[in-house]
């Protein structure tokens, strides 16, 4: 009995702040402003401007995820090989910026990348050509990679730490070179971490609207921006919810992937 009681606050939390809101989204997504049933809010994703925004969001978040993975995997390997003490200090350094507000960090990138920004100031001082990536998709990808990289590093680091040194040594003993060890041992054993890292980068990157607003100069419309506008500017909660339902499909797919490859929850971030 007392054990069940312990779950009480959690259940109240989940029901109040996850289940009910989700049901509300489903309700709004499948009704018109007057409350009649409709599928128009969901099928609206096929409208050219919505489809384009979704396509662009998928493309940019895919690029960001790949870049994050390519950056994070070698880093996680280096950290693991450094041993617990020094490795976890570097991990700590990685988490440190996350203590600052996400919005402020993205604003800081704006200041860095601007035409008369910090980076161009330094480049100009060194008589180097200036960069002009602010308000382009490249700046959005940069913002996504910067903001979500820790979410890729941490699960990879955790999963790599669990690989026994003896497994690696055995592969080496049996004559595998570095490349073969990587392909045959490192990567297969870190799949749970890779999958959960991909999910943790891809999902927030797909749904973001702050990064595209701040670093894209509001000139590049992602699906997150469309939904945000429907809620905050157009007061069309029905359409916003309908499009959110479409986005949820992508989130569900990635969760199913995690479920499939990460049965034991090995690849968790913390």
């Amino acid at each position, binding site marked *: 009995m007392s054990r069940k009681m312990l779950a009480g606050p959690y259940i109240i939390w989940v029901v109040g702040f996850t289940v009910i809101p989700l049901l*509300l989204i489903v309700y709004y997504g499948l009704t018109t402003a007057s409350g009649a049933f409709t599928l128009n809010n969901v099928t609206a994703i096929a409208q050219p401007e919505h489809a384009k925004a979704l396509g662009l969001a998928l493309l940019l978040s895919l690029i960001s995820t790949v870049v994050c993975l390519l950056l994070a995997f070698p880093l996680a390997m280096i950290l693991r090989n450094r041993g617990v003490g020094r490795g976890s200090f570097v991990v700590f350094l990685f988490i440190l910026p996350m203590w600052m507000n996400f919005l402020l960090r993205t604003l800081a990138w704006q200041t860095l990348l601007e035409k008369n920004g910090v980076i161009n100031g330094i480049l100009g001082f060194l008589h180097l050509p200036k960069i002009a990536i602010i308000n382009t998709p490249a700046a959005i990808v940069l913002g996504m990679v910067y903001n979500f990289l820790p979410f890729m590093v941490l699960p990879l680091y955790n999963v790599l730490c669990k690989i026994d040194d003896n497994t690696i040594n055995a592969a080496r003993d049996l004559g595998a070179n570095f490349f073969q060890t990587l392909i045959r041992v490192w990567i297969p054993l870190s799949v749970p971490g890779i999958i959960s890292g991909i999910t943790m980068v891809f999902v927030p990157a797909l749904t973001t609207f702050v990064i595209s607003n701040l670093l894209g*100069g509001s*000139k590049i*419309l992602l699906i997150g921006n*469309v939904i945000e506008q429907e809620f905050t500017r157009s007061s069309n909660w029905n359409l916003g919810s309908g499009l959110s339902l479409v986005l949820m499909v992508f989130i569900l797919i990635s969760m199913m992937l995690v479920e499939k490859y990460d049965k034991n929850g090995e690849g968790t971030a913390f």
Partner: protein
Amino acid sequence: MKKRFYAASLAAVLAASALLAGCGSSPSGKSTTGTSDAGEVYVYNWGEYIDEDVIDMFEEETGIHVVYDMFETNEEMYPIIEAGARNYDAVCPSDYMIQKMMENGLLAELNFDNIPNYKEIDPEYIERSKEFDPENKYSVPYTWGTVGILYNTSMVAPEDVPTKWMDLWDEKFKGEILMQDSVRDAFMVAQKALGYSMNTTDETELAAARDLLIQQKPLVQAYVVDQVRDKMIGGEAAIGVIYSGEMLYIQEEVEKLGLDYSLEYVIPEEGTNVWIDSWVIPKNAQNKENAEKWINFLCRPDIAKLNFEYITYATPNKGAFDLLDEELQNNKAVFPDIESLQNCEVFRYLGEEADQMYNEMWKEVKSK
């Protein structure tokens, strides 16, 4: 029409959670301490839209306890009043939103006997208010301003100085233009450039404005709201669309930073948007008389002057205007001549259907 960027971003973050929570953000409560027998008044105003000392002064003088909440956008305020989630006694929306609230029966008629200081309001603005409050029964003007073009004197050659909206389509300014990132403001620019009314609901006129905006997009550096101010001060762009209310701040900042350029404000000759934010009392107000006392207090010239100095948006209060330094009175960016406002209009609420059309077309511009 108060907009502050950081507040807007915060609202964006809140909206992110609202997206999941399926409901809007609740107003952030801020109340001063101390209660009294004179009752209470629930005030709902824009963020940073009052000198906070004024609240204390009001409480001290009347003994009425003020519960003060803030909102970020008209659109955020509206559902809260409509749902009656909290009974506010005095609210300060913009012109078109006042009309929407009035048309939907959300406003109470004011008893002007309780607002003797109403006489301090310049009749010019009461006249202009008729566009959204035809009989002047519901609203008392609080601030007003125009929208115009801001340009950097060192980046714009003297012969290229903008005089009309169409100058924002000049290829010379490619990548140097900052446009407003809100539907009505952006469309206003194109509609005025084409010689249409900014309150048009005609689909062909709107489509023409949309096409003009799409044509402009490659020249635009970014669509922003309040960042126009900081980006222009920082020399990021040569030319931008801005609210006149920001001008005093900009001029002070340019002077303070000792910049080697100045930023000048132009009201385009095709005419522009004149906006008015006014106090209204919702129908479900519980303390209507206290709200009228509140509005009356804000109309007192010395109080209106304090608020003007804090907000820096032009005051429609004649009494307060007379108290200002001559230099400030002659600052044309803050207080433009009435004659220069010939073709100007006030935004009107256009109804649900037209709103949707605007939003749809704006999305088409943004996704191009």
